[in-house]
């Protein structure tokens, strides 16, 4: 995720999280930011379709999305909250405001934001707890 976001600079970087519920990320799918902006992002619609189909084929689910904030903290902006597409998803924010980058995950349910614990488990995928 971090590599995707650094490569996307000066724009925001983004991608999808593929895994199983509850909150086990098994793969990260980088996407172009089709908004081509340092202030907003949009997942490439082709990546979106391909990833949902892959999830169906492999018995997985798209369980969230990550994106970077290049000059602001790792907290969902009003835009992020308003446009959060799925209340079951995990929204991972990567702030590149300082080094090292700050990586945090949130749930967004009916406009209410709650931070989640992120654990990196070597070789078993990463877990984002509710």
């Amino acid at each position, binding site marked *: 995720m971090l590599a995707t976001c650094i490569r996307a600079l000066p724009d*925001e970087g*983004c991608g*999808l999280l593929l895994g199983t519920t509850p909150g086990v990320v098994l793969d990260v799918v980088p996407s172009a930011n089709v*908004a081509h*902006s*340092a*202030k*907003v*992002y*949009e*997942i490439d*619609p*082709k990546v*979106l*379709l391909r990833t*949902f189909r892959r999830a169906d084929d492999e018995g997985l689910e798209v369980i969230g*999305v990550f*994106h970077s*904030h*290049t*000059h*602001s903290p790792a907290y*969902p*902006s*009003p*835009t*992020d909250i308003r*446009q*959060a*597409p*799925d*209340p*079951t998803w995990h929204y991972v924010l990567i702030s590149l405001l300082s080094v090292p980058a700050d990586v945090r995950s949130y749930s967004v349910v009916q406009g209410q934001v709650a931070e989640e614990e992120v654990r990196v488990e070597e070789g078993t995928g990463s877990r984002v707890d509710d």
Partner: protein
Amino acid sequence: MSAVLRIPTVLRPAMGGATTISVEGTTIGAVLSDVTERFPAVKGQLLNDDGTLHRFLNVYVNDDDVRYLGGVDAPVVDTDEITLLPAVAGGAW
């Protein structure tokens, strides 16, 4: 015979819970009219008031994004699979 519409998880509660449904119509606009008549609660998530596609909705006919096929005028035939996916977007603003 009719085309198949694949429904995203987030819209299923308002559309009867099914993963796919059969839909009628020879264009995407006609198909979405069929859907919104059957499931009025999702109209605001699919179409704008002027009948154009909602900005934050991606609609695909098979592998193709309908924005490149004429939007609501994109043709649909009986063997097509139509997929709805809400856009995934946001940002620091």
